[in-house]
């Protein structure tokens, strides 16, 4: 569904963020992208979203070249506090993308209800983001993305700023969302455990200027569960392999 072909991006002559990336994402998959800090994961995500004009290579969504933000794509950012509009209620925030989709009002109202219910926040629809905890705010951001009914959901370190307990709940939410809404998810994260726990495939990036170090299929059985899966033999094996890869990655291009 999503093909990335020799993606290259630099922020000026001295700063090459991404050297060359080539990979595919199939429909319905959850793909996690991991790598060391500063390796261009966010640059990659912004490029996939069409928020960045890439320096070289091509990104195609369903065969169409991505040059500006394509239809059917939603993004969840790490800083939920800044991406939710503080002057809108939770409901207004979730509604915002739907307003300009020419949807009949009962359809959009239904979608808002469904997505808020899916993240368990129907009861705070009238509150403002700053009245909610961090985890709840991020859930609102997820609900907003869901209500949009995207084909592809991009998440940029969505749980990095959230406490461990909430993170576990949100991870399970993402898995459930993929099953229920049948979306394709690309998730950027620095947390390897999370990447292995959630995804069907893990793409490992090298340090900047980044290249693809490995594309590892995660053959851990589903449905997955925070306690048993994370203690299972399969999980630990795959996890150590990923960590080893990141630790002894190729040195930066000289």
């Amino acid at each position, binding site marked *: 569904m999503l093909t990335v072909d020799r993606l290259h991006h630099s922020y000026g002559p001295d700063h*090459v963020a991404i050297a060359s990336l080539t990979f595919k994402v199939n429909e319905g998959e959850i793909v996690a992208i991991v790598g*060391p*800090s*500063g390796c261009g994961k966010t640059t990659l995500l912004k490029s996939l979203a069409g928020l960045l004009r890439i320096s070289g290579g091509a990104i195609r969504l369903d065969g169409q070249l991505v040059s500006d933000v394509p239809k059917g794509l939603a993004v969840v950012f790490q800083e939920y506090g800044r991406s939710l509009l503080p002057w809108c209620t939770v409901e207004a925030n979730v509604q915002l993308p739907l307003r300009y989709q020419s949807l009949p009002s009962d359809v959009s109202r239904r979608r808002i209800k469904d997505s808020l219910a899916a993240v368990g926040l129907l009861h705070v629809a009238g509150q403002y983001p700053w009245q909610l905890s961090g985890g709840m705010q991020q859930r609102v951001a997820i609900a907003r993305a869901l209500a949009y009914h995207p084909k592809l959901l991009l998440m940029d370190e969505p749980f990095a700023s959230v406490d461990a307990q909430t993170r576990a709940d949100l991870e399970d939410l993402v898995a459930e969302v993929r099953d229920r809404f049948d979306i394709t998810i690309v998730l950027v994260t620095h947390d390897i455990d999370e990447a292995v726990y959630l995804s069907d495939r893990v793409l490992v990036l090298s*340090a*900047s*200027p980044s290249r693809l170090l490995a594309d590892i299929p995660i053959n851990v059985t589903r449905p997955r569960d925070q306690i048993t899966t994370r203690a299972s033999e399969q999980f630990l094996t795959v996890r150590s392999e990923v960590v080893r890869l990141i*630790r002894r990655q190729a040195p*930066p291009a000289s």
Partner: protein
Amino acid sequence: MSAAPESTKAPAGSHQRKLTFSPVIAHRLATFFRIFAGALLFFLAAELLTWLEFVPSTYLPRASTVALRVVELLYDLPFLLNVAHTLGAWALGLFIATLITIPFGILIGTSVPAYRAIMPIVEFMRPIPSVALIPLAILLWGQSLTSKVILVAYATAWPILYNTIYGVHDVDPITTQTARCFGLNRLAILRRVTLPSAAPLMFTGIRVSASMGLIVIVGIELLAGANNGIGSYILFASSTGGHMDSVLASAAIAGLFGLIINVIFGVIERRAFAWRLLGVASR
């Protein structure tokens, strides 16, 4: 977490450095060019508008004429004396206000009962336009330097006082508590935590009241009978006919000085309080 080495820059050939400007100089040059271009644009637009003569040029002379007059005035000793008189009175008033209100403000801000009792009064006095007292000042002290200085001092005192009290009162209690835990006594906390923390807001108060003071002093000079200062020069030039270029030029010079003052304050603010990256709302 991985301890992988990071490198965000592709190493540029170091031999290339000699040919490019250091980024700091490049930035300064760009800023200077930008300002110059902006000023030029302004002048050209003004020249075009005045050339089109929507208003007859006896009333609104050409921008070039005004600019010439500005240069002439800046070489004219009597005029410069007027400017010095205005700026001197303004500076003196501002200085007196700062000298008096900052210590008071610190005292009030650090004492909770004093804050609760006095702050309502300060909030009450602050929105009162000081220009309303110009006739009173003239009555009491005539059109003298004294009345100007006193009025400027009065006008500038309130914003400074308000900001000082507020800045001192609103120091982050976590910072002061941390200092207490490290054994600092009250005076040390004041010196090393409270004052530095409140300084940006205090300075904003001074900056705001500086421009307020300029307005007040030109205002008082504008009333008939004044004999010194930019304001009286403008008034004089406008009452004797046919000197529109002087009127506009002197107003422009007043603006230029105001601009220079603003810029100086801005530079000091950025240098001294660069750590306060989050904008301090001007109150």
